[in-house]
């Protein structure tokens, strides 16, 4: 996997022709994406933000998909500082975009994630799935919008967000939005927010797990499937270790 590094004006510019996988290590400050996945090309982008450094970050810009292009974004963010993510994707005919995002927000962090997908043409597909764990007095906002333009027949989209709220005085928001101007489409959205589900918690505790053991098992379950998507073994194991040690839940 090749690493993408920003240029001197914090831009990541890229035109993907073939079938590429890139990693992005999000450090400090702003990061502007200007990426085009060309016709029939495919891009897999793994965006990591680990526990350090201690500084806020932002990501904005576009990842556009030409005809029959494929995009898969996996983002894992376990940093304790603020971040604002606002990425837009234009989808041309036959293209498919998938975003899978796992986030922990703790301390006093404020994290906002917004993925806006524009279905411009027929047979376009988008799938946005975000999972988060909120602790302490942090904030976590999952905003996702799919716009399906008129004439984009057979378009498919799903916007999904889940936050497990373990915070004392935190703020959580999940707001998946669908704007649809075409009849012949498949579109759905799902939002789940709350303490870990009571039914699951009761079930696990009824088998002998303490509330804390059950809660951490459930939140690990939220994040682990996303971490498993990271292709670099070293990075994956490092993130997995963090998840399994429940680094985001204070004792």
């Amino acid at each position, binding site marked *: 996997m090749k690493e993408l590094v920003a240029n001197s004006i914090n831009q990541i510019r890229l035109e993907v022709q073939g079938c590429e996988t890139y990693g992005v290590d999000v450090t400090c400050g702003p990061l502007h994406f200007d990426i085009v996945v060309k016709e029939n090309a495919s891009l897999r982008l793994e965006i990591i933000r680990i526990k350090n450094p201690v500084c806020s970050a932002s990501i904005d810009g576009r990842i556009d998909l030409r005809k029959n292009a494929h995009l898969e974004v996996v983002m894992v963010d376990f940093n304790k500082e603020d971040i604002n993510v606002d990425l837009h994707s234009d989808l041309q005919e036959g293209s498919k975009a998938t975003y899978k995002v796992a986030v922990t927000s703790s301390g006093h962090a404020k994290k906002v994630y917004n993925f806006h997908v524009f279905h411009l043409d027929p047979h376009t597909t988008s799938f946005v799935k975000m999972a988060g764990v909120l602790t302490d007095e942090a904030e976590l906002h999952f905003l996702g919008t799919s716009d399906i333009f008129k004439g984009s027949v057979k378009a498919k989209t799903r916007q999904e967000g889940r936050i497990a709220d373990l915070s004392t005085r935190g703020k959580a928001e*999940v*707001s998946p939005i669908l704007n649809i101007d075409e009849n012949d489409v498949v579109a759905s959205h799902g939002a789940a927010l709350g303490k870990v589900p009571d039914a699951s918690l009761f079930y*696990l505790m009824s*088998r002998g797990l303490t509330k804390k*053991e059950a809660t951490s098992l459930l939140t690990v379950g939220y994040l682990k499937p996303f971490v498993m998507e990271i292709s670099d073994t070293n990075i994956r194991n490092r993130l997995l270790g963090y998840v399994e040690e429940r680094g985001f839940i204070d004792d």
Partner: protein
Amino acid sequence: MKQLVIKNLHVSVEGKEILKGVNLVFNQGDVLALLGPNGHGKSTLFNAIMGHPRYKITSGSILADGEDVTSMSVDERSKKGIFMAFQNPPEVSGVENMDFFKQIINSHRESNIKLFDFYNKLKEAYQEVNLSEDMNTRHLNEGFSGGEKKRNEILQMLLLNPGLVLLDEIDSGLDVDALQLIGKAISKQITKGSSFIVISHYARLYSLINPTRAAVMVDGKIVVDGGVDIIDKVDKQGYEWIRRELGISIKKEEDKPIVLESCARNKAVK
């Protein structure tokens, strides 16, 4: 657990009283068939014994060997030897079966089980309920068929070897072969000394596990507590005879209102 004594138990759910004074003395080795029409408090009794937070005990006590379990947390009750097989086990995504099984076994032990012993124990349990070991890497109950979920409940019972087992309609959604299998697993657990309270609407399960006694719950109370001949009577005649012989009227379950899901937007600000 040698004895479970339930004294004048009153339980409310969201302000509505469901159990209205349940009395029951239950001894080690008892296998009790708990009968009664839908919506009259059988599952509520189980949830109250297990400690579901939605089920509020307003008065009365549940004593396990003289110790009041109502002040115990749910996991403490499990460690005390109480096990409830859920009527509708929840799907827990992200939690792999095998990780979960290992953790629940260890939660009931002083020191962690040796890996080799764990694999053997698990293999044996899988065979007993006829589930494939492929289930190990699947997430807990996620995407399981109705029958698989029920068998997974019994599998957990086998792993934990509890003193008191509460079975809530374990036979619903099972085909005939699976029912035979589950019946056999339960009978085996009975020979190991576990006591059972079994809710079922069908005599078939009872005929496989041979209960030692039977009780009928109507309107939040145990109205009949006696021998196993009651099972046959209910199977053949329903509950009409209770009204006739005991003069107790049976209200039908209320029609539940239909609630439409709200649009997918959620916001919580404390």
